[in-house]
Every structure is written in structure tokens, then in C-alpha cells.
């Protein structure tokens, strides 16, 4: 059962299993790859994982139906997922947005700013401590998903 940080707390995910890239079809309760997800007849309540390079276009017409979008970070230095998340939230996606893979604790704050609310790190040994990094900054210059107004519209 994957352990993750969700909405600021460490939890076990009892709802979704990690993607199975070998399978032809996504089994119920398993996060689908983009191509498995495309093959689904009914996308209501679905869960799909984007890899870097997938882009968000395919998902856009179905955002209201999807329950979970996982965005994969095979290596933590590949920042495409940051823009994917921002785009999805900008287009109105309100479901769970989960970062999965090789990202690191020190990216949690930025990840949460661009719209992720769940974090499943490959290295999940010290998740409790890692939660602290979500709050690395209490103030920001730019608008983002967590704070839609840039500082210049809020400065007192």
C-alpha cells in the first residue's frame, strides 16, 4: 500500500495502486497509463498517470470526470510536471493531483504551489519529517495555485 503525503498528512493510499505499464488494460483500482486511460470507455472516477512528454492536452476534455491525476517525476530534475500541474489546475481540474516518483522533499513546497495536493516519493523513509518542507516559505511573490494573487496585489 503506497504511503504518501496528502493534504499535509502522511497516509496510506487504500484506494489506488501504482500503474502497471505491462498490463493491456488498467484494472479497477489501479492508476492507468495515458494509453490505458484513453482506452477506457467510461472515464468517470478514473485515475491516470502522466509521464514527462505526455502533455496535458488529452485529459482536458475529461477533467471533471477524473478522480486522480498522477504526474510522474522519473528524475527530480525534470520539471515538466510542474507546468503540467499548473495547466491542469488552470483549466479547472479540482480532483487529486499527485506527484509520484523520484522527486525530493525539498521540492514539496514548489510542488504544492503549482497545484499538487498529494505526494508519493520513491524515498518514503522519512515522510513525517518531510511534511515540514511543505511550509518552507510563508510568503511568495508570484501568483500560483495556492495563492492566486501575486504579492503586488496584496502588499499592505
Amino acid at each position, binding site marked *: 500500500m503506497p504511503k504518501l503525503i496528502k493534504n499535509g498528512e502522511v497516509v496510506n493510499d487504500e484506494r489506488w495502486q501504482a500503474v502497471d505499464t505491462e498490463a493491456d488494460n488498467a484494472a479497477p483500482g489501479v492508476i492507468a497509463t495515458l494509453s490505458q486511460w484513453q482506452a477506457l470507455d467510461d472515464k468517470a472516477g478514473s485515475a491516470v498517470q502522466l509521464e*514527462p512528454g505526455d*502533455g496535458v492536452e488529452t485529459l482536458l476534455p475529461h477533467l471533471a470526470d477524473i478522480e486522480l491525476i498522477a504526474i510522474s517525476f522519473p528524475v*527530480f*530534475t*525534470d*520539471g*515538466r510536471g*510542474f*507546468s*503540467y500541474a*499548473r*495547466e491542469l489546475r*488552470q*483549466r479547472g481540474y479540482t480532483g487529486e493531483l499527485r506527484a509520484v516518483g523520484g522527486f*525530493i522533499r*525539498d*521540492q514539496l*513546497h*514548489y*510542488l504544492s*504551489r*503549482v497545484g499538487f495536493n498529494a505526494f508519493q516519493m520513491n524515498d518514503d523513509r*522519512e515522510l513525517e519529517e518531510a511534511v515540514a518542507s511543505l511550509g*518552507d*516559505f*510563508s*510568503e*511568495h*511573490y*508570484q*501568483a*500560483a495555485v495556492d495563492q*492566486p*494573487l*501575486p*504579492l*503586488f*496585489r496584496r*502588499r499592505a
Partner: protein
Amino acid sequence: MYVYDQYDQRIIDERVAQFRDQTRRYLDGKISDEQFLPLRLQNGLYIQRLAPMMRIAVPYGLLNSRQLRKLAHITRHYDKGYAHVSTRQNIQLNWPLLEEVPDILAELAEVQMHAVQTSGNCIRNTTTDQFAGVARDELEDPRPWCEIIRQWSTFHPEFAFLPRKFKIAVCATEQDRAAIHAHDIGLELVANADGEVGFKVLAGGGLGRTPVIGSVVSEWIEKKHLLTFLEAILRVYNQHGRRDNKFKARIKILVKAMGIEAFREAVAKEWAPIKDGPSTLTEEEISRASSFFTDPDYEQFDEAAAAAALAGQAAADPIFGNWVKRNTVSHRVPGYQAVTISLKMTGHAPGDITDRQLELLAELADQFSFGEIRTTHQQNMVLADVRQQDLYALWQRLQSAGLATPNIGYLTDMICCPGGDYCSLANAKSIPVAEAIQARFDDLDYVYDLGPLELNISGCMNACGHHHIGHIGILGVDKKGEEFYQVSLGGSQAKDASLGKILGPSFKQEDMPEVMEKIINTYVDLRGEEETFLDTYRRVGIDPFKERVYAKAD
């Protein structure tokens, strides 16, 4: 100059705390080398050949005297008593200890400084014209815009893990002194047909191993749209820039691969949904940013009288007169002049400055230039607001500190990266080459006779010394483990930007002064009336230079 309020200070203080914790976890073995790498880079820390190298941000080159004193203290206390001005207007330390970097950052934060995003694959320090705000040929002051960009790009959550580093430059003059064509994004303040000032936006310029001149993404955008437009460009780049090959990861490669038309369309598509959104700049914000760059208390002078008095002093002391001619430029306010302090004295690494010199400059800035000083991308410093009547006194003080070398814009005012003496990426040393050339051309009158000449030296393809856009460029290359130097001619960073052409096979270090001399002699022989090196080169092409340099000795 911009002054932090409680928000800016809090953000910077929280950054120091964050990096302190990261450093502690790294030293405890809880963060791997690989994971720590981007974290320390985005706090300005490289691990170099001999020791860590730390790059301190000087936002668009502006410093006050308090900051200079702090830098002097830091170089003395944490380093070996000297610092280096980089070609991105930043300040580098060559010998800090990793364990002490959080303390250095905390000291910097006390004077509203930091090392944020001075390295790493993120948006770097925005640069501009070193004469911003005082230049006569300026449309309007670019610095408020640099500050607006600084704030927007600082800890931008979406763009901290880009395919590669990302540099933005802003200029507001015809004669572009910020090399905007050689930047990932170049912004030029320009008026449209109705006379309204906005931005011309270029993208995809850059040096490095594939030098490219930037392409126009938009001829003109309204000022208030600046941030959303930048955001759209970055979003296209972050999603589509190549990540499989670090040498092909800069935005210039993406722009080329897509073609500028398609790139523009992609930007337009990203822009549409955010244009006019909350990140659209407000009138209040633009005036708030501008309010930090208003005129200091200039006195009123009679222009003709001030000029005549200065001319009298210059005539009485020709050495002073020469320095005024070479190292100062006119100011938009009568009775004032902008002074460039040359950090290119023969026998010193270009751009290096000691703790004592930093302190002296702090004093001189207080006394003569409203407490402010600027760094330049040519690795010099500028006191921008000096009364003409003070120039003589200022010059005397500079002279006694070895800071009055009258060579700005001439051959010996060369740009040079730290190279193999400090930098672990280097193919070859660059400082000894610079010093050898300076020593060879030690006759200043001869150097003046050569006219404006930009010599730029980089120790490797990364081109920190901007060798592609030097009138003469020198690049360190590795040939089977030996250090060699490749020479290029005809580059220019000015409005008529061009990239240098390679002269031919590379040379050994000891041959470089000789090679330079041959190139210079070719120019001297061929130049027409009033022709600069670049003019002559553009007229005659590379062949005459080639023939002379590679001619077999009989």
C-alpha cells in the same frame, strides 16, 4: 535603489533558514550529492576545482555602500580577501567553506542581499545597462522592470527545474549595452507607432557552444502584460525544451527546432488564458517599482561652466584628462558624469577586487555618488552620479588604490572568465592568457590608437567570458589533454550584434601574445581612416588575418 519591505525580508530570511536546514541534512548524509546539487546551485554554490565557488547576486548590477562594506567583510572573514565581478554583474567568492555558506547568506540577508538562483537550471539574475537611469540615450529607466522581473522570478515554483539555465536582459537604448540579443529572453523598451512605450521581446539568443542571436517573439507588448507574457514563454520552454542532451537544452535550440513562427504560436496559446489575469501588472505596482529609482538630489549646475572647469583641470593634468576621456561618460544631468572604475589593471586577474578596494569604493560611493555603485557585465564598476567638480578628487583617490587604469573600452579592458585556475568545467586557463596579453600591450598610447576593441576570453564552451561576441574572442579548448586556444574575430554585442568567426587551428598558451600581435598588426596595416577594428574586419573579412597569423616563418 530598491529597498526591501517586510515581505521581501521575510522571503529572503526564510530562504536562509531553508538552506541552513538543507546544508545540515546534507552534512548529516540525509541528502545525496546528486540531490543537493540543484539545491546548492540555486543558492549560488558551485563545487569547483579547488574549493566551492559562491556566486552572490547583484540584481541588475546595483549595490549600495552598506552592501559593499558587507561584501568586504565577507571576503575577509570567509574568504581570502578578494572577490570577482562576473560577466553577469554578480560577485563571486572563490574560497568559501560549504559549512559556512548558510552564515554568509545570513550576513547577506542583513543588507538585503542573497545568492538566489545565481546558478542552476532556473531563471537567473536579470541584467541591464550599467548606465541605466543616467544615460542620455535612454528611452526610460529599465531598472524598475528588472526589479519587477526579479520578484516574479524569485522562487517561481513552476520554473525552478527548467531544462537549462535561463537568462533575461533588459535594455532601453538604441545602443544596447545589455547584450539582449545574446540572452534567452531579451527585452527592449520601445515606443510603438502611437508613441506608447512597451516591450519588444526577443527569445532564443545565447552563447555557449551553439551561439545564436535572439529572434523576435513580439515587436511590442503593453507593459502591463510583461509578466504574463514571460510566463507564457517559460511555460512553452519548460514543457518542450529538450532534456535529453544538456548541450541542446537551451531555449535557443527549441526556438530553432520549432521555427520562430510555431514558437510564437505556442506562446500565444499559453498566453491567451493568463493574459489579463491576476499577474497583469497594476498601475500601482509599476509606480511602486519606479518610485525606488527616482532621481537623487541632483544639484543644478551650469553645463557650460562645469564643462569648462573640467576642461581646465584636464589640461593642467593630462594624466587626469586622459582618465576622464577614457573612463567617464556624459550624464543626462548637466554637471554630472558617470565614472567607470577599471578592474583591469595589468598584473591582476580581470574583474578581481580586494576587500580594501571594496571598502574604499564604499567610501567613495558615499562621498561622490549618493552611496551607490554598479557592477558591469564587462567586469568593471561604475559610480554613476559624480559631480564633474569632484572628478579630480575622486580620480586621485582611485589612483592611489590602483583603480584608475584608463582603459575602458580598449583592448586591455578585456572580459575574462575565471577559467582553469578556479573553474572545474574549464578546458584551459584564461587568466594567464589575459595577463600575458595585457603585458604585451602595456603601451597605453598604442592601445588607444587601436581604438575601441573588445577582447573576450572564455576557458571553455560555456562561454562565461562571452568570447563569441568579442571583436576578438579567445576560447580555451582541450586537445588531447593539453590546453589550447581558439581565436575568433568579428563578434559584436552591440545593436548590430554578430557572432565571431573562427580564425583557424588553435594555439598554445605561450603563442597567444604573438598571435594577438599579428591580428592587431593586420588591422593596423589595413585600417582605413577612422575605421575601428570591427569596421576593418567587416570590410576585409577574415582572410587577411588568417594569412598573417598562419604564415610560415621563412
